[in-house]
């Protein structure tokens, strides 16, 4: 099967699932169903693409196929922010606070954190990208310890509100936020376009990339900012779900078996959409909302991750 056919097949499967998602059990109440499911669907398409895209780019930059952008601690920062709001102002503040404000604040804080981290590390020349990952990992652990500490102090009822935020959910997406998110993703995508050609070369590693005339530090720094913005937007939109990226990126590498990033990104995005729309269908129709999508994704992703580790272990 050629790569084109494979991507075509993925696209068809994605479209079938989308149509199914929109029409199943509709019962003719279109004026109610279309906006309600449409919002969910747009959120899924947006996050699915953003997560798949940023994971593939991140793994190319780090030359490592078992990392996800969550390693720089953005997810944990998001959870910390939610916990701090509930801890200081109480859960009513979180429910009363304007959703737009929350979204902008969360995205702003995460991007600011990523920028500070990069600034700290790239100011001095010769710093390795793995320093960044290491420091990010430490910050991430610090943030999550801090949030779990606060979660233990707060009222159990309030904790439930925080716990709700720990799992990604597409069930109550606000349409104003959706517009903001679409705008953000589009602008980032346009900014990324001119760096697109460098990705294949970056996959060869730093030395080959420099030899072939890529301004390595310049390009990598900008790619990391693009990744941070996309992750922040999708996390603030639906919750922490970066684990999905690991799953879909690796399925894409294995299924497409190519190094060309144009095809890899397209494939990974489609697989991501298939997983999310399919998963959401299962959550809604099979489990009738008794579980959340991210539980299923994390379960499948975890099993796949162990499989990957075992496989890599053998190939050494």
């Amino acid at each position, binding site marked *: 099967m050629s790569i084109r056919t494979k991507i075509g097949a993925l696209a068809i499967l994605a479209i079938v699932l989308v149509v199914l998602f929109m029409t199943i059990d509709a019962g003719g109440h279109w004026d109610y169903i279309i906006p309600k499911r449409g919002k969910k669907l747009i959120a899924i398409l947006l996050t699915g693409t953003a997560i798949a895209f940023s994971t593939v780019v991140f793994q190319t930059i780090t030359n490592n196929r078992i990392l996800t952008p969550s390693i720089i601690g953005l997810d944990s920062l998001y959870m910390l922010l939610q916990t701090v709001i509930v801890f200081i102002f109480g859960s009513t503040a979180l429910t009363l606070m304007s959703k737009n404000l929350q979204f902008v604040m969360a995205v702003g804080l995460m991007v600011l954190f990523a920028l500070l981290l990069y600034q700290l590390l790239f100011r001095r020349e*010769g710093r390795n990208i793995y320093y960044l990952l290491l420091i990010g990992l430490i910050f991430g652990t610090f943030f999550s310890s801090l949030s779990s500490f606060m979660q233990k102090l707060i009222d159990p009822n309030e904790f439930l509100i925080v716990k709700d935020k720990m799992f990604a959910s597409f069930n109550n997406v606000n349409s104003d936020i959706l517009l903001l998110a679409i705008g953000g993703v589009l602008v980032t995508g346009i900014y990324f376009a001119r760096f697109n*050609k460098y990705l294949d*070369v970056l996959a060869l590693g730093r030395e*080959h990339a420099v030899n072939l*005339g890529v301004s390595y530090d310049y390009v990598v720094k900008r790619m990391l900012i693009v990744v941070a913005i996309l992750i922040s937007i999708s996390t603030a939109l639906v919750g922490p779900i970066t684990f999905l990226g690991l799953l879909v990126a690796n399925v894409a590498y294995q299924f497409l078996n190519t190094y060309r990033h144009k095809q890899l990104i397209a494939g990974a995005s489609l697989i991501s959409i298939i997983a999310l729309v399919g998963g959401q269908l299962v959550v809604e129709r099979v489990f009738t909302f008794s579980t959340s999508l991210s539980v299923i994704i994390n379960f499948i992703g975890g099993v796949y991750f162990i499989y990957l580790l075992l496989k890599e272990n053998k190939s050494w």
Partner: protein
Amino acid sequence: MVKVRGVSKQYGGKKVVDNVSVDIAEGKITSFIGPNGAGKSTLMSMISRLITKDAGEIVIGGTEIGSWKSNELAKKISILKQSNHINIRLTVKDLVSFGRFPYSQGKLTKEDMKYVDEAIAYMELEPMKDKFLDELSGGQKQRAFIAMVIAQNTEYVLLDEPLNNLDMKHSVQIMKVLRRLVDELGKTVVLVIHDINFASCYSDYIVALKDGKIVKEGTTDEIMDPAVLKEVYDMDIPIENIGGNKICVYFT
């Protein structure tokens, strides 16, 4: 012309390359020799902008290395390091095509493909051009990487220990190809090389380094001298003339 003037590099207070000045001769093979830790690879990495220098200047074609646009410099000078582990699965042809990136920015034209095919033919890789790199032997892989550098078609070709891990046959094969690059295509080749006899038989100039400084530089004849080698390597190295080549007999 590559001019190196007063270049230094230090890691944690230790000067790895210390105020080195050298000119690289056009259209010749120049070999950097010296004991481990002499700063040969570091010097080469600085010349090819893989690492930054702490002091001094490196002028390539009349322009300081920092003032070059990275993409333009990639059409002038290329480097191949000793370890070439690549994480992605590529065929030989894909790899060699990457050599055209400075010209094509990823969109290969007919002319680019001509250079790629020529480079593959030059390294005699045609029978295996559609094979994946991980299916090749060490020597074939090394040839594939050199083919990539040839497709890059630069005036200066820098190679950091190109014979690393190769057997005698493949070492000779690679050195002969490098000689042809210089004699037939007029390239300037710079090598970091550990086997002194390969340096003696194939290079035009030798630069001997020790403790980050140049001990002596000159034509191969001048450097292949027991007194000079004693200073560089701290051991007595008798030199025999075999078949018109100066061969070091240092094994016993």
